[in-house]
């Protein structure tokens, strides 16, 4: 009965975010009380919109890389010829997850220099685990009768993978990508410590000049992006799951 309320809230959040990014000056009075006299309330060392788009670009590139590697790896270790590489692959992605992104940045800067590249490496490594584990779960928990029918009807290994296994595992794989994206959105901010153009720049500028308004707006934009993207992915997963007949109701 009140199913429309979350959608109204999402639409409002999206409208608010776009308005803030396009003309942040409109919100100056709202943030003014947070800063000391004469300090700017709205980030003034670059365009918030440009930083947001660069932030999203960094996350998109790192996640795409993580999806390609993690899904490929999960497919390989669920084939009969790759089963023995499962423990090794698992260890590798676990190392990627446990190695702190800050440490990755510190190690990558001397090799790759300052800027976006070390951030991409850190996000890529950090994003592997959820995608890998979910793909693995999706591919190993398929209904046995369906897999038997797929073999029995004469599909080759490749046809089974692309026509049956991946489509049926897709909702679970997407859930992994969703987690990875949300983690990356937040983690990308620390990329600005090594001069990557992300929303972290706003937060760091605020911390350096003791400007709470900067910290708040940088954090809120990242938070709003995370919520909206999370919901977007969830909606796609529900549609796919319903189409796959995995859950009759979304």
């Amino acid at each position, binding site marked *: 009965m009140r199913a429309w309320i979350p959608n109204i809230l999402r639409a409002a959040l999206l409208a608010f975010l776009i308005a803030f990014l396009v003309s942040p000056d409109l919100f100056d009075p709202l943030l003014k009380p947070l800063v000391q006299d004469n300090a700017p309330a709205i980030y003034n060392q670059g365009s918030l919109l440009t930083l947001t788009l660069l932030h999203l670009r960094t996350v998109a590139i790192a996640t795409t890389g993580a999806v390609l590697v993690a899904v490929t790896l999960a497919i390989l270790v669920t084939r009969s010829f790759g089963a023995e590489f499962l423990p090794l692959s698992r260890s590798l992605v676990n190392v990627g997850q446990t190695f702190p992104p800050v440490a990755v940045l510190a190690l990558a800067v001397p090799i790759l220099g300052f800027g976006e590249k070390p951030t991409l490496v850190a996000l890529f490594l950090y994003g592997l685990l959820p995608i890998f584990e979910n793909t693995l779960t999706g591919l190993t928990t398929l*209904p046995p*009768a*369906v*897999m*038997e*029918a*797929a*073999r*029995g*009807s*004469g*599909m*080759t290994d490749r*046809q089974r993978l692309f026509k*049956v296994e991946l*489509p*049926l595992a897709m909702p679970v794989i997407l859930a992994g990508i969703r987690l990875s994206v949300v983690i990356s959105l937040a983690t990308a901010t620390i990329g600005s410590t090594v001069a990557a153009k992300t929303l972290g720049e706003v937060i760091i500028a605020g911390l350096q000049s003791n400007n709470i308004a900067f910290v708040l707006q940088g954090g809120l934009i990242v938070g709003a992006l995370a919520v909206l993207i999370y919901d977007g992915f969830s909606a796609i997963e529900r549609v796919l799951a319903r*189409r*796959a*007949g*995995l859950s*009759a109701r979304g």
Partner: protein
Amino acid sequence: MIEIDGITKRYDGNTVVNNVSMTIEPRTVTVIVGTSGSGKTTLLRMINRLVEPTSGAIRLDGEDNRAMPGFELRRRIGYAIQGHGLFPHRTVAQNIATVPTLLGWDQARIDAKVAELLTLFQLDPIVFSARCPHELSGGQQQRVGVARALAAEPNVLLMDEPFGALDPIIRAKAQADLLAIQRLLGTTIVLVTHDMDEAFHLAHKIAVMDKGALVQYGKPAELVKDPATEFVQTLIGASERPFRLLSIKTAGDAVEPGAADGKPLAETMSQRDALSELLWTGRSALPVAAADGTILGRVTLEGLSRRAAKPQ
């Protein structure tokens, strides 16, 4: 014709199927029965090479089933399983079209085949083609599963407990439909079940498996008359023997000349059901009618009890 020649399957020294040889005649229904763990499903799955035998050979119409890659072989053999295994992300029409699509039929031929099969299984193509499997009832899902297995017009249809998940009423209907379709298409059917009633209802020949070995292979009446082992005897059930005999043939086969009062029995009804009808109505004879309503004669209590007696 399917020739199974000295087939053995071992897993880690554990013999699951032990030196089984049997010949399955074309256009017949062969039912493989046995308890769980008897190796009956493994034997079936070796025919379409879902399981590769340790030793022995299986020939289909004289050709070794290892002459082509496994996936090509399986496209030529229908396969229906318990719990149907329909692809949940595909429509009914796409499910049925699975093997024709793999074989690269053109779309018009596929569409025609899907419509033909749906009609054959009493599912309206207009209503059901675009539905997803989870929108169907259990009986409908099972029928689509068999339709999918028959889509590429295979000569051989393998069925692994296809009716196991159905309730008794739908199961009886599904069995009757299967027999009608088998007669219509002339498909050679090999069916695995642990349900002896089902076996006697469907089979031209029954193969009994016990601990990996084929202990008896013959017509249903032969199994009742001369059970090869104690195990076959137990499986058939001593007290069930006369009724097993009667359930093999139809009332039409037991027709005697003469007239009788009462509601006519269908010619296709099993003799067991005819006997039940006689006992229940308290009559000693009932008329038998063909599908078009013409009276063919009558069945009598005396005639049926003669047929139920131990064959000489």
